[in-house]
């Protein structure tokens, strides 16, 4: 069993989850105010997954991220001001406005790119794992994707190769039950997507994606396994997105099976639940409030930075296609 988290890790969990929450709330505000070009896929409700997973890996490990990728970046300690600026299409953003919400890349943090194609980043993260094995670095690669990506061919191709070659890759399925409007339970005859691991001869673990400590524990085990050269693991985190597929999608299609579905999941708010638990476990509320104040200050500054930043010059559309 994984060891009990230290107090520092405990407060870090909360800091990260609260930051994700506040970040996404402000992204939603951008949309409502008409400040954001295009759309964004919010991570609200899924905070415990990226937080628990990223707490279990090292600074030089790799992350493959999806269209719903803001949480992964925040969990890696990405600069929230540069993220916000990118989401608004500004010159000061991570990609100077060329990527936007779906393609925020922070190569210096091992983020190999968020990806607008469902399942598109799975082989890329797998290639990074191959590269780690090739170079003998003991790094691992973590591939985050949603439930629906498990029905893309790239999922099968990648996991198959990682299993065949014992690659240090961890596949994290963020099962929020829906691919846009389609219920995964209506298009897949497997109760637990992690069960697919059996077909590849690797471990598949189901974990409560609303419980950051539980996610952290299974991830630690998978990472240790990968680093020891024992190959990949599939982790399925059962979670729920509070909003629709993207900002502006009310997501009401989710109530057809159970009108109380959303309500039930929202009662399990991973951020609020962990806050209560932290206090119960002896973290003084004053410390929690201090963290919240710090995050609030950071997020407000990020919003201001993004809003105040200039747009790129139109001529920059022609930059960065090739390198010299």
């Amino acid at each position, binding site marked *: 069993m994984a060891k009990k988290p230290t107090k520092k890790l405990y407060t870090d969990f909360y800091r990260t989850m609260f930051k994700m929450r506040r970040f996404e709330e402000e992204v939603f505000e951008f949309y409502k105010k008409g400040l954001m070009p295009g759309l964004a896929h919010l991570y609200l409700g899924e905070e415990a997954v990226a937080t628990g997973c990223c707490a279990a890996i090292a600074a030089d490990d*790799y992350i*493959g991220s999806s269209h719903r990728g803001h949480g992964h970046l925040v969990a890696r300690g990405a600069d929230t001001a540069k993220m916000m600026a990118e989401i608004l299409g500004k010159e000061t*953003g*991570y*990609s*100077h*406005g*060329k*990527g936007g919400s779906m*393609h925020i*890349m*922070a*190569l*210096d943090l091992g983020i*190999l*790119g968020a*990806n*607008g*194609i469902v399942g*598109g*980043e*799975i*082989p*890329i*993260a*797998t*290639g*990074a*794992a*191959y*590269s*780690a*094995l*090739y*170079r003998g670095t003991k790094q691992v*690669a973590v591939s985050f994707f949603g439930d629906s990506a498990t029905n893309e*061919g*790239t999922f099968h*191709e*990648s996991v*198959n*190769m990682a299993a*065949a070659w014992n690659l240090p890759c961890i596949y994290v399925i963020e099962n929020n039950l829906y691919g846009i409007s389609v219920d995964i339970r209506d298009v897949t005859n497997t109760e637990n997507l992690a069960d697919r691991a059996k077909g590849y001869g690797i471990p598949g673990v189901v974990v409560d994606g609303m419980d950051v400590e539980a996610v952290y524990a299974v991830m630690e085990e998978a990472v240790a396994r990968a680093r020891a050269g024992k190959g990949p693991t599939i982790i399925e985190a059962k979670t729920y997105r509070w909003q629709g597929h993207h900002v502006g999608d009310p997501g009401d299609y989710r109530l057809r099976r159970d009108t109380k579905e959303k309500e039930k999941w929202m009662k399990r708010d991973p951020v609020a639940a962990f806050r209560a638990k932290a206090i119960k476990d002896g973290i003084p509320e004053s410390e929690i409030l201090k963290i919240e104040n710090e995050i609030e200050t950071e997020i407000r500054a990020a919003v201001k930075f993004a809003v105040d930043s200039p747009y790129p010059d139109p001529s920059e559309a022609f*930059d*960065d*296609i*090739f*390198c*010299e």
Partner: protein
Amino acid sequence: MREIQYRDAVCEALDEEMARDPNVMMIGEDVAFIGGNFKTSVGLYEKYGDLRMKDSPISEAGIVGMGVGMALTGLRPVVELMFSDFLLVAADQVINQMAKIRYMSGGQAKVPMVIRCPIGGGRSSAAQHSQSMQAMVSHFPGMKVLVPSTAQEVKGLLKAAIRDDNPVVVFEHKMEYSNKFEIDDSIELIPIGKADVKREGTDITIVATSSQVMKSLKAAEKLAGEEISAEVIDLRSIIPLDRDAIIRSVKKTGRLLIVDEAYEFCGIGAEIAANLQEDIFYDLDAPIGRIATPNVPLPFSPALEFPIIPSVEKIIARVHDLTQR
């Protein structure tokens, strides 16, 4: 100068680059143990081992995507797709991932990888193993596209491609693999983006790619007997396109014929004609001609296939058309 088969020139390029740089590796279907479906990597598995010469499962999207991940993290992978037709199986990873990641990252990322794949008809391989995908790939921004003609070109360009920090797709012509060419070992690298005048002439410029260069040279030889002087330009690279080399030649000859084996509609000839017309329109003594594969799926029977693909006879006939005006 020495004589060498096209396939061995490919193998030499791979061998030399793998020996030079420990981060160069190769992955693909049947590339390792049997040395490639077209025997273009024979002996490299024995020399470099399993990690650097990787036989993959039949997972085209998976291996191209793996290549992208490797290239982002310090390796210089060469991914072989057994036929260029299989680019379509991997299309998302080629077009949306490999070619776009640098741009989408605002220049943070480099993707130094090569995809090698054979093109061309002539082997009765029918509609899914005979296509020439260079026009389709060239439609998308973010990757260099090479169409080497001879053993010299394939060796020098492949080596340059492996050293390039950008994604490069190298199209090798499967009808050339067994052909022998003279090769000059003093030429190590061929710069990407430079066309080569393979034969000088004054009456017409024939711009050709890949195997069509050799067909064009044969046609030019026959045309010389009729006192028609054809200049043959080996394009070598479609992206980047050496516009200046073509413009310079057409200003001299006043006529232009483009020969490429990809489909005619939205093809290489169409692009070159449209791309250059503002620069050469008033130098032209005849319309710009093109020879390509007409827009039909490549048929199986040689009786149907050979009349469809470009040939020496078609090039001569078209040059006659264009020079009589």
